């Protein structure tokens, strides 16, 4: 009996391998395009809000959370008191595509693209400046605009005009 069982198992094994003939899990990248999942973590970019302004407010949470310290930015202030990153650099020779910056970003500005295969001859070419990072689009979140939710005034948006806000208080009134 044992012999027959062994032989049948042997046969089952052979059949298993033979069945695989003609199937393959390999994707011949780059000839065949990859089907990447939507939450794939590739190269980060800076997106714009639905009104076309930069989303980034230079809060520096991304650079704080970055485990490889590859993000460096300097905050600036526009004449309408809106914060923006004067410079924004990512050193992609250090980036590990962990996506923590995207998670940390409170304004949904930094978002990870599906681009992962980019190679350069020199390390210095991996340092992407803001011009190379800022895209003309809203990315994965088409409707979010941080300034509509937060209670700061801007040119074109007065106090009380944000979402879920009352009109400004009259502090001179002592009425109950």
């Amino acid at each position, binding site marked *: 009996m044992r012999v027959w069982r062994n032989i049948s198992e*042997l046969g089952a094994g*052979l059949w298993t*391998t*033979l069945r*695989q003939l003609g*199937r*393959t*899990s*390999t994707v011949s990248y780059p000839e065949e395009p990859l089907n990447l999942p939507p939450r794939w973590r590739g190269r980060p970019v800076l997106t714009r809000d639905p009104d076309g302004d930069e989303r980034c407010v230079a809060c520096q949470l991304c650079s704080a959370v970055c485990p490889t310290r590859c993000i460096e930015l300097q905050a600036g202030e526009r004449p309408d008191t809106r914060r923006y990153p004067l410079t924004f650099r990512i050193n992609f020779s250090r980036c590990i595509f962990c996506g923590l910056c995207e998670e940390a970003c409170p304004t949904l500005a930094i978002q990870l693209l599906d681009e992962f295969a980019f190679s350069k001859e020199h390390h210095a070419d991996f340092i992407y400046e803001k011009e190379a990072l800022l895209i003309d689009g809203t990315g994965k979140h088409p409707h979010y605009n941080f300034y509509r939710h937060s209670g700061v005034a801007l040119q074109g948006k007065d106090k009380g005009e944000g979402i879920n806000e009352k009109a400004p208080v009259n502090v001179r009134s002592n009425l109950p």
Partner: protein
Amino acid sequence: MMLFLMALGMLFTTLVLLGVAGFLVFAERRVLGFLQNRLGPNRLGPLGVGQALADALKLMSKENFVPDFADPVLYRAAPVLVAFSALASFAVVPLDHHFSWAGNWNIGLLFILAMSSLNAYGVFLGGWASGNKFSLLGAVRAVAQLVSYELPMGLALLGVVLLSGSLSLNGIVAAQNLPYIVLQPLGFVIFLIAGVAETHRLPFDLPEAESELVAGFNTEYGGMRFGYFFLGEYLGLTLIAVLTALLYLGGWHGPWLPGWIWLLIKTAALIFVFFWLRATLPRPRYDQLMALGWKVLLPLALFNVLATALAAALWRLA
């Protein structure tokens, strides 16, 4: 003039055989790939055929190196011996009626058995001369394995010889009105298993055993010397496949197509079976290998000889 043409023909055959062996290396990698849900090498040339050439070029361009601690003469001789013995065996292999270099030699089978023993010497000497403990272990295993499996192999062949009454390959093929696989199923299985063990291919690749002995007998070999071992192995594989086709599957017999194409088809199918085995079966332990050889195959082979002889005698009487 005749001699010159013959020499030219021999050279051509040798080159073709080497080419076939080289191509088999590539073919095995691709077939294994397909069997394992992979693609295998497909970058160079159409379907990746160029890979064989690239491998050969790589091996040939490597440094010709003899380790300090190796025996220089034996170290150099061993790969040649392996490749030579495999190539020489093909001299008696017919592709069709009376179409072989050695002609219809009446002891062709014996010659092949002798040559395959010589092959074992090549492996053993190579491992021993390397002066490396892994190589030595591989060599010792190779000798023990060859000795153990040559016996069942020879005994299995006896069945065929008994039935055909000939030691010449032509004679045996000619005698097969019915392929001997029908008359000798046990003999066929034993011959196939022993053949795999003879060529020390997976699952019986204990002399090499990458996971235990680095690369076994050819640990210290590199470049074209390693290439000779490699060629020897694949030529041996081809040889066993051709022999099986000739001895058990009716050789060039077959309807509609020319005989040599039938032989080629049968050989290729058998070679695929070897690849398939490699893709499926894990390597047994060394003691299991020995046990299989001595405790299973040898008694079975003896039984096969007795049974065949008895059946043949009864057949005569009847």
